[in-house]
């Protein structure tokens, strides 16, 4: 299956791209995706520290992905002031 990874803010600058299409085995979890992405895009933080949102909802690392999901990797936020 294929998912779209979205890199935001500092992660986008590290990855050098805003999005990537990643091929995964069916039934893969967020953890597995993130480990693969971290191997492919060096410079990202430890994969265990990366938080992900799937289709605009925060999800736990053991969340099982579906084909076509949009998985945003969310750096620590800093809105407000």
């Amino acid at each position: 299956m294929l998912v779209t990874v979205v890199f935001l803010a500092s992660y986008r600058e590290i990855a050098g791209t805003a999005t990537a299409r990643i091929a995964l085995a069916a039934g893969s979890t967020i953890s597995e995706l993130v480990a693969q992405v971290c191997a492919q895009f060096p410079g990202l933080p430890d994969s265990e520290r990366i938080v992900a949102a799937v289709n605009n909802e925060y999800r736990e690392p053991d969340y099982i992905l579906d084909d076509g999901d949009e998985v945003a990797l969310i750096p620590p936020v800093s809105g407000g002031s």
Partner: protein
Amino acid sequence: MNSTSPIHITHEPLDVGRVGELVQHPGAGAIATFVGTTRDHTGDRRVLRLEYEAYRPMADEQLQRVADEMLDQWDLTGVAIHHRLGRLEIGEASLVVAVSSAHRQAAFEACHFSIDRIKQIVPIWKKEFFVGGEVWVGSQEDFNPLGAHEVAAER
């Protein structure tokens, strides 16, 4: 969604007075307002300007979630949260929160909560531009998108 919406993310300058008007209510005895402004320093470094970036529509949804949590936890007569995006000069407002309630304690607590909560869950990022450099701001400690939010009574 425009500047008359209680929850609003925009590249336009924020209108502090307008946000306060959105929470006026005959049953309100108190309006607590918070304005986050671009300051000219962070620690010892002089800040030249800022840029804010959001992941939308998730940022809008999470900002609405903050407002919903406020309305769930406190007896409020109005909540409005406006967040600016894009390039901000020193002194410009990045965030305006206005909360009204019959009694002041609820308005204060909910307003204070909202700022902390925004920094836990709303996917918006700030980049600071200094003389000779720039940096994305973000605290691993505050960021708490998967945890339960704190109990209001602590404040």
